[in-house]
């Protein structure tokens, strides 16, 4: 895992629709309390049309939406129905603005078992009858308001998406973005989010094995919390999120329903306005209940009595009761009076819209209710029959037998409005893309520059974060955090290893959304091949500003195009994910930040891994007896090994960490990715790894070649080792600026090390793959020396890198 990255720079101005004052939402909630006149019935028009329209507006429903609802229903909606339409038409649930673009993703491939959008999560085949379910989801707005619970419930939600597929959750990764650590609020958010992930993930017993963190003022008001969960299942255990079988019982399981998280999906579908007023929209997590729910659900699925299953996540009971029959071509009828509640006097509106956590909806085969209920009871959980499957294509909600909502499910799902929003190339690009390198002085002391970069919070070591996460529970984590470019898990009972990574760079996307989208996928794949794995598929979290702003929509469109092109080139289909719009605070939108979660597999022959041995209290790396060595970590191993640079260094400083940290500039064009060249590099790495020639591999990303080399020298704290590098001669690129050679972030590059004897065959192999490969130096000594520019004790680099983040967090605010 490489946790890296930071930036600063100007922001987009907020534009587009000004959403309703959040206080209005508050007033709706109070309307939801049992004022007798509002206990609407389908036929009872005891709520005035004006009031309903007002309520509709407060749910971000437009006049058009309201007219559409009246048309679909053939009557005025009830208050509960307005709430249901409100959450289901929210951007968060409906993907109204993004759907037309998401359709352009490649979603099929020979390993895809469940493609994007069909179930709770995508599923890919890893052979031997096994499969991986994985998905990434954002929890940005809740985390901005209440970081501990916001992040914790983000973890809980994505875990449920995975085990509802019949998979045991085996790993979590997270991608986090915060503002500058110079701000006290950023520290509060950063520490809270890390605590939330730690509290929930540790207790629920799913290891957090990797991730990344960037600090940049673009996220000052709106942090990003994206969590990816990976689950392992036997293919025959695959579960479905569809309701079918006329008369089959609908079972509510898990926690009782409270008033927490009311309208969370709507809250996620507008800009952040007033933190405190939004607090009631944040859910509260209970990892203990979730842990019990995992075990009970997997036991229930193993009985074969469960027809369909879906998490009650965003939009709670509403979402599951309309999406499951929509998938199954059926209908559902429930009675909210039967829903277990933790508060008195909840209205149907509140029960349907609550986002209380750790709840799921199951469709059972008839007659199996008692058996399943006793199974959940063993784990101390509710399992209550609240309705049954119908075949009329409607979602009917009763309250003590009185109908309070009766809606065709298709109107809420497949036929929900889709917006083809206008797009416009952002005006700022003309200015940012003009970067004259001539105006930038090359620093005199390049060693100091390297040290500064290593200590910058985005690049600095993230140990103080990942040590707070239990990354070893389940005893599969083969490559621990902070050791390699990707996390590696063994798959018990097989010789397979699973590799996973999560990557994104918002600054690249801000400066060129199309290239930025490509770069994110390319880096994720590069990280996987660096440990020796073959990339399989991706999930994504697309974090953007307000989609009503044509410039934001253009960023979105271009990022999606970049991701799609890269995924097509690499044959790594998109298996799902989520879209998070409205990531804006009062002073503007975040940088467009697509985050790519990618998984890969490797199948080494048994007993081929190198290992660490304890000799006289010191750990030493033991080369494997055979020439094979899996997985590959990022640190240099032995004195005398040769260091090679794969790929070409171009004069590319645009969008670099160096430009941001040292020159305080967010400008230029990000590095270009040649997708075919990138693919050739991937194939070379997989080939070289299979030959057992690679002793270390680390990709060049933030901070460029110099930071990559430094990290390979210092990544293993117990085994710091130097290197002597001659770049200029070996790459014959003397024409380039020195800072571009050292800190430029040209794509498609990996620094590897190997035994001297492996150099010749490696270079020949690289030539066959059409990848530039140059021996640039040797491992050894206690200093990192790069040409005549950098000469420093690795101990000093290590100190800067290891203390950088804590120093920034502990620095008192001015």
């Amino acid at each position, binding site marked *: 895992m490489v946790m890296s990255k930071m930036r600063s720079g100007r922001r987009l101005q907020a534009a587009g629709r000004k959403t309703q004052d959040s206080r209005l939402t508050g007033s709706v909630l109070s309307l939801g309390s049992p004022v007798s006149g509002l206990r609407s019935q389908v036929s009872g028009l005891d709520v005035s049309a004006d009031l309903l329209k007002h309520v509709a507006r407060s749910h971000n429903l437009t006049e058009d939406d309201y007219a559409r609802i009246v048309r679909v229903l053939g009557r005025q909606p009830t208050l509960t129905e307005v709430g249901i339409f409100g959450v289901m038409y929210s951007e968060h649930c409906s993907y109204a603005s993004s759907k037309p673009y998401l359709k352009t993703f490649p979603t099929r491939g020979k390993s895809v078992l469940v493609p994007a959008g069909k179930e709770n999560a995508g599923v890919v085949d890893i052979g031997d009858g096994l499969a991986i379910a994985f998905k990434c989801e954002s929890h940005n707005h809740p985390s901005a308001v209440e970081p501990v619970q916001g992040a914790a419930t983000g973890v809980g939600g994505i875990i449920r998406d995975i085990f509802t597929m019949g998979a045991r959750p085996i790993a979590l990764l997270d991608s986090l973005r915060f503002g500058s650590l110079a701000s006290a609020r950023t520290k509060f958010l950063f520490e809270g989010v890390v605590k939330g992930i730690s509290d929930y993930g540790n207790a629920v017993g799913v290891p957090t094995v990797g991730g990344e963190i960037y600090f940049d003022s673009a996220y000052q008001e709106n942090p990003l919390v994206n969590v990816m969960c990976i689950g392992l299942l036997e293919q025959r255990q695959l579960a479905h999120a569809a309701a079918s079988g006329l008369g089959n019982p609908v079972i509510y399981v898990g926690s009782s329903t409270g008033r927490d998280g009311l309208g969370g999906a709507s809250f996620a579908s507008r800009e952040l306005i007033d933190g405190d007023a939004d607090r009631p929209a944040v859910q509260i997590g209970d990892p203990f209940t979730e842990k019990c729910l995992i075990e009970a659900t997997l036991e229930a699925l193993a009985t074969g009595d469960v027809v369909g299953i879906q998490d009650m996540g965003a939009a709670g009971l509403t979402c599951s009761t309309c999406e499951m029959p929509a998938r199954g071509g059926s209908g559902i009828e429930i009675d909210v009076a039967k829903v277990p509640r933790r508060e008195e006097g909840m209205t149907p509106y509140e029960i349907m819209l609550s986002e209380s956590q750790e709840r799921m909806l199951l469709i059972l085969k008839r007659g199996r209710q008692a058996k399943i209920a006793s199974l959940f009871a063993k784990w101390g959980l509710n399992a209550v029959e609240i309705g049954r499957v119908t075949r009329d294509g409607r979602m009917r909600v009763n309250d003590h037998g009185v109908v309070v909502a009766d809606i065709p499910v298709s109107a809420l799902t497949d036929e929900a409005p889709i917006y083809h929003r206008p797009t416009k190339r952002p005006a700022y690009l003309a200015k940012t893309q003009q970067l004259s390198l001539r105006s930038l002085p090359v620093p005199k002391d390049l060693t100091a520059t390297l040290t500064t970069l290593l200590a910058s919070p985005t690049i600095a070591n993230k140990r103080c974060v990942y040590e707070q*996460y239990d990354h*070893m529970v*389940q005893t599969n984590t083969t490559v*621990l955090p902070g050791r390699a470019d990707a996390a590696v898990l063994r798959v018990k009972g097989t010789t397979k290893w699973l590799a996973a990574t999560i990557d994104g760079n918002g600054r690249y996307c801000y400066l060129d959304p199309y290239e930025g989208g490509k770069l994110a996928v390319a880096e994720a794949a590069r990280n996987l091949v660096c440990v020796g794995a073959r990339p399989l598929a991706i999930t994504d979290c697309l974090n953007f500003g307000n989609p009503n702003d044509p410039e934001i929509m253009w960023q979105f469109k271009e990022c999606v195009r970049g991701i799609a092109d890269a995924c097509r080139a690499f044959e790594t289909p998109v298996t799902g994910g989520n879209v998070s719009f409205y990531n804006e605070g009062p002073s503007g939108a975040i940088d467009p930040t697509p985050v790519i979660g990618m998984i890969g597999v490797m199948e080494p022959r048994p007993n081929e891994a190198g*290992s660490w041995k304890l000799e006289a209290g010191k750990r030493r790396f033991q080369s494997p007896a055979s020439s094979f060595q899996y997985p590959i970590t990022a640190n240099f191993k032995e004195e005398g090994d040769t260091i090679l640079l794969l790929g070409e260094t171009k004069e590319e400083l645009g969008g670099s960490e160096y430009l941001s940290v040292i020159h305080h500039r967010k400008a230029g064009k990000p590095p270009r990715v040649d997708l075919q060249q990138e693919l050739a590099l991937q194939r070379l790495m997989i080939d070289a790894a299979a030959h057992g020639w690679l002793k270390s591999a680390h990709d060049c990303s933030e901070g460029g070649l110099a930071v990559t080399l430094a990290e390979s020298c210092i990544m293993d704290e117990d085994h710091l080792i130097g290197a002597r590098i001659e770049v200029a001669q070996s790459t014959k690129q003397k024409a380039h600026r020195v800072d571009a050679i050292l800190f430029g972030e040209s794509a498609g590059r990996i620094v590897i090390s190997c035994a001297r004897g492996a150099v010749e065959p490696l270079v020949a192999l690289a030539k066959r793959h059409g990848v530039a490969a140059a021996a640039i130096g040797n491992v050894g000594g206690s200093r990192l020396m790069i040409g005549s520019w950098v000469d420093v004790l690795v101990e000093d680099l290590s100190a800067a890198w290891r203390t950088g983040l804590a120093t920034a967090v502990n620095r008192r605010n001015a």
Partner: protein
Amino acid sequence: MKFGVVVFPGSNCDQDCVHVLRDVVRQPVVTLWHQETSLRGVDAVVLPGGFSYGDYLRTGAIARLSPIMRAISAFANDGGLVIGICNGFQILLESGLLPGAMLRNTGLRFICRFVHVRVERTDTPFTNQLQQGQILRLPIAHNEGRYTTDEHIARTMTDQVVFRYCDADGQVVDAANPNGSIDAIAGLTTRAGNVMGIMPHPERASESALGSEDGRLIFASMLEAHAYA
């Protein structure tokens, strides 16, 4: 040798222990549900790590009240082998089978990482395959691992300390004490020696693929003790 791994709601290292005992140490293993009242004839009990009942009160405070713990107390008092790992150690303390209590780590944060522990005694059923002063590399993963007790008890129980946190060279120094435990205590037995609590996770360090096999020696010691019991 038949092992029983206890499963409380919220345990999350139970299957890891089952895996190591069954697939690595190659012994028969059963899981014991917290509501059971019989130990089903097991030769040793493992109280695994995790967050029993959510640990929302004090760690291990609710677990000690479970039906299975009554059976385990009787088993322990009768000389049966009981190992409590992490949350299991906390439960042993709450049950009064071992003296002392756990406080939050001095850094007030959860810590997950490999640490070194020094073997202080080899005449126990959990350490007979180890050398005096041997340094083991084992992972910890806890928020409340700061062992504490009053000075009087601490003075009288020095011969019950089995493992102490140390540095890679075996030196017991403050810098190598991850959680602020009194006397750097990482593992403790009863006076009789048949019950041990240990904060590090030996089951996470019993296979080379996971970076250390040192933990397996603790399970191997239990086998040895049973064979000659």
